[in-house]
């Protein structure tokens, strides 16, 4: 079947079986390999995609459910040629080790910052609680979200 949706800000269509998982469609048909598959059972958060702005799991969604939705993967978070402020903060804070959890962590962090401009550390930990970092580098990830939040207000004004 033909499924139409918005992908990283652009109209997209895909002709595929409705029962494929979103993580497979995005990786295999669109080459968006920033959508990682870790556990395949919703425990690790590596396959996170923003669906209408909310973090959801690509391994627990079927292709047909993309119909009409606005999907953003890590590849579409930043403006063309640049970095999202949270990606910059991840670099500065050393919040990336092997990188496998990073797309999910960044998307979860960006969704939190949209909801709440200045979250506390406990709220940041809660927001990333569905994401496993196999390198166990959580402190730096929380630092990065906090750093981006601290800068958030100023960045938005200059945009």
């Amino acid at each position, binding site marked *: 079947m033909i499924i139409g949706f918005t992908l990283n800000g652009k109209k997209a269509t895909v002709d595929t079986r*409705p029962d494929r*998982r979103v993580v497979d469609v995005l990786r295999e048909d669109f080459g968006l390999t920033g959508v990682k598959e870790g556990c395949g059972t*919703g425990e690790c958060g590596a396959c996170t995609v923003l669906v209408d702005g*909310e973090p959801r*799991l690509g391994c627990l969604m079927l*292709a047909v459910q993309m119909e009409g939705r606005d999907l953003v993967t890590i590849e579409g978070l930043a403006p063309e040629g640049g970095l999202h402020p949270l990606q910059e903060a991840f670099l500065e804070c050393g919040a990336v080790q092997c990188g496998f959890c990073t797309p999910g962590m960044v998307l*979860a962090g960006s969704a939190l910052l949209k909801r709440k401009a200045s979250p506390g550390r406990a709220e940041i930990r809660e927001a990333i609680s569905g994401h496993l970092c196999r390198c166990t580098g959580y402190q730096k990830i929380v630092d990065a979200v906090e750093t981006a939040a601290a800068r958030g207000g100023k960045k938005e004004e200059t945009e």
Partner: protein
Amino acid sequence: MKEVFLPGNLEELWRALEREPAPRPYCGGTDLLVHLRSGKTDPDALVCLERIPELSGVREEEGGLWIGAATTHARLLDDPLVRARLPLLARALSTLGSPPVRNMGTIGGNICTASPAGDTLPPLYALDGEVELRSRDSSRRMPLRRFITGPGETALRPDEILAGVRVTPDGTYNVHHFEKIGIRRAMACSIASLAALLRVSSSGEIEAARLAWGSVGPTVVVSGEAEQALLGKRLTRDVLEDAAERARKAVSPIDDVRASAAYRREVSGNLLLRLMEHRPL
């Protein structure tokens, strides 16, 4: 290949459910997709209930709240009516899964999955929730306690769907307590949980009590004996120890990968001791 239907209203849903073989309904997919992947379940076709407006949202009705089955846990947690009138449910929802799971999973899915570890079930039992079941030609209601007939089993007929759950909170309860024992705070499948509603008078006497335990029996466990043991008493250690002993007799836990039956039995009672923290000052 499985056909997957995505009805946008009830009429489209009924048409999908009339097909042979009937597609299996799902909504958030947080449980179903795990079982599809492992091969534990393999239906010929699926129908996703996430786009049907009649099955979503929270509204005041008949003095209580009607919650659409397809409402996600995250929407419920954000809902001012739920926060104000169902704090017990809100507390349980805040421990369910993780933020992305709460953005996908729905209260109707949690009910129909009918897992003894379903986090919304002990509060809904304590609150005497009532399910609303609909088919093209019928609409019926029944208490949640009767709807869930066993682990993973419900009274849902093949032509029916769960449309919503109705809860009429009794505003006189002044203690709303939920605690879940799990290995970690997020993404923890409950080892044991307790939902408790108490009405404690200004002089400290327990006037009414509703207790329900998760993960310590084939379905949610309620214990009239444990509730009785609290009535007319105060929230002291001795009183709660007495109720805890009765609770340990009422539960029928199993050994599994998460915990032993003996641990679950012990902790089912211990969870009541926490109610001491709600003693009026």
